[in-house]
């Protein structure tokens, strides 16, 4: 995918889906996003990890859904009609949903607009962020999905 964008553009650019968690904005690399769906009935799975809210039916597939807020240790908020589930596919046949407060837009960021995440300032470990994107005046935290989805929970 990176190679393709290299071929298409002179600069190395990546598209991100920008989501809202509270006031903060996060970017998710669009190549991992399979789908974005509205909030729907989630079937609770007993005795599983706390941050997994359960499973949903996505066109005949059973997809586990996690709360981004719980995973990164933020308080839960009420669901609104802006709440969305982003279906991520890091691997084929293993989709997972992430509940976010809202989905804003898609931005294209060149390599020169992405800074390394300042590691010391965020004491959150493991770090869910692998870069900071600048889009005009706003800053977007770029999510490292492998860390978000992996087993490790914020202590």
């Amino acid at each position, binding site marked *: 995918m990176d190679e393709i964008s290299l071929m298409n553009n002179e600069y190395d650019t990546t598209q991100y889906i920008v989501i809202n968690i509270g006031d903060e904005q996060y970017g998710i690399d669009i190549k991992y996003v399979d789908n974005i769906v509205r909030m729907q009935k989630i*079937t609770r799975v007993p*005795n599983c990890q706390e941050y997994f809210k359960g499973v949903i039916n996505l066109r005949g*597939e059973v997809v586990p859904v996690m709360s981004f807020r719980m995973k990164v240790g933020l308080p839960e908020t009420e669901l609104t009609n802006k709440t969305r589930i982003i279906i991520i596919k890091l691997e084929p046949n293993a989709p997972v949903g992430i509940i976010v407060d809202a989905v804003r837009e898609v931005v294209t960021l060149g390599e020169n607009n992405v800074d390394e995440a300042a590691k010391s300032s965020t004491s959150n470990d493991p770090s869910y962020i692998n870069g900071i994107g600048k889009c005009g005046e706003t800053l977007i935290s770029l999510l490292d999905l492998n860390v978000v989805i992996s087993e490790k929970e914020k202590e």
Partner: protein
Amino acid sequence: MDVNQYLEIFLDETNEHLQSLSDQLMILENEPENEDTINEIFRAAHSLKGMAGTMGYKRMQALTHDMENVFSEIRNGKMKVTSQLVDVLFQTLDALEEYKNTIQETQDEGTNDNAAIIQALQKCLDEGTGAPAEEKPKEKKEEAPAAASDADSGDGGDKKWKKINLQEHEINAIKEAEEKKMKIYGCTVFVQESCILKAARAFLVFKAIEEMGEIIISDPSTQDIEDEKFDFDFSLYIVSAEPYEKIAEAIKSVSEIDRVVGEKIEIEDILEGAQAETKAAEEEAAPQAQEETKPAVHEPAAAAAPAQGAGAAPAKKQTPGKPVVNRTVRVDIEKLDVLMNLVSELIIAKNSLVSYSSGGQAGNNSSFNEQIEYLESVTTNLHESVMKVRMVPIESITTKFPRMIRDLSKKLNKKMELYMSGEDTELDRTVVDEIGDPLMHMLRNSADHGLESAEERIANGKDPVGSIFLDAYQDGNNVVIEVKDDGKGIDVEAVKRKAIERGTITPEQGETMSSKEIIDLLFLPSFSTAKVVSDVSGRGVGLDVVKSKIEALGGDVSVKTKLGEGSTFSIRLPLTLAIIQALMVIVGGEKYAISLGSIDTIEDISVDEIKYVEAKEVINLRGNVIPIVRLHEVLGLEAPEENRDSMIVVIVKKGDQYAGLVVDELIGQQEIVIKSLGKYINCTSRMISGATILGDGEVALIIDANCLI
């Protein structure tokens, strides 16, 4: 010729032939005179040879050719079947199997010539045909009286040392030794083919010899041997004061040495040979002549083989006694998976129609309902047929076991017999493919740790021949495979002691644990890796692997044992993986599915029928005391208000164990499609075996009742 398109057929047929060879050899070992079997083996070997030749696999062809030769002789009554021969033949089969595997992976047969096996086969052939009167003649005896030329030709295979050309200084060394009344020996050492560090073994052999004498020359050169530049044998000239037997003994004492062939050489022979060698022309001719005489010896056999082959071909046509092969089409399993998925979709769509018709306007349109019912019966039949297509008998894996037990019996030096039943029990193809290894493991466990040695068995008043049983049968929606032995059983106390020693459990825990719970400790990963435990308790190597594999398939493993009488390991596997009949229930407002296969009955139990045993709730149902599981508790739900005076209890069973699951409401029976929860969600209690999508699009979880018992 592009043979790639035939590769698959070649592999399939090779598999079949190898299996039939293995089966027939087992029979042959017990009935060495069975002509049908010999003919069958000959035919299979012949077909294999032809196929390998067509596909251009020369090494495989060569090996099968030699095997065929042996059987050709047996068939002509010129040779007898000995257990030694059967061993060599089994080795041959293993080598062929290896070729097949290499071909499967790389489309190439690899570079292993299996020279040692070919030699072993030839040796059998030589021994068998050359001296049928003496069953196992020593090569020495056979050759000693023979004329020089005969000796040369007869030993073409094994006595490689004769090919060594001696140089002047080596001859001088030999002469010197002769003067000191030392004896001269020529010998060839064969290293086992499985040997990994050939050079190291050769070094040990050298060292052993040098303690008793001196090595004059070796072929390949010492340097080459050190660099591992030799196949599986090397030849030596040795001078020593010791008798040959002692030297041979010393060489054989090095491990991984297959065998040693050698004899004493008279100095005159060497000198004669050396004189002959001075003539340049003959020097070249000598080894060649040997090469030529070698095939010459086997010429009758080789000539007989094609003739037999030709004879066998029409014979094959004449004997339609073989069961008529079912008309089959080989289908890629992936295509079946696609078909299965489509059937699943169809069933979900049907379910949603059913729920639509039953909600609201039910009864309004009777012909609509009729059509729905019709659709239901069609989808159910369709599902069953697709399922059946995927089913294969477990025979495809069990056929390897008798051979394995035979090998184990020899290796462990214990007498044992394997009895199998229910090999025609069918399971989903994917399941069958997966259970081969676990079963093998369990059989090995039984043979190695379960059964006692013959002496011990006699001392305990048992039949010296141990028995291992492999039984498969269908039980409801499950298939049960049992591996049973009549060995010493599991010493529960020893397991407990070891578990406490290792800190797996505390002594206090040990006090309260039932013997069943203690035996279950054997399945813990930490337990099985410990070699010490397997020595004391006799069990536990790799059982955790067996367990995890079986559980990944949705099944479970259990053990029953009686000290001194043996143990039974049972594997319980679901018959189907994808679609099951289930009972839908409501617990705390949530819908759950329970597989119908594990449900025994559904009971309405009045609250005051609940009794307490060891502070656990039980009911007495028609004489059976059944523990009660309150589902809302295990599912982490709020307890329902206790204002009812009766409750609905779903009685589930696993084997002969029962449990009663308390539910709030019953919805009814439904065909459900099992979907995985995905790899990210971790259900700590394994209670939820999957999810399914209901007619209204809602997801319901499937409760694995086996885990609650």
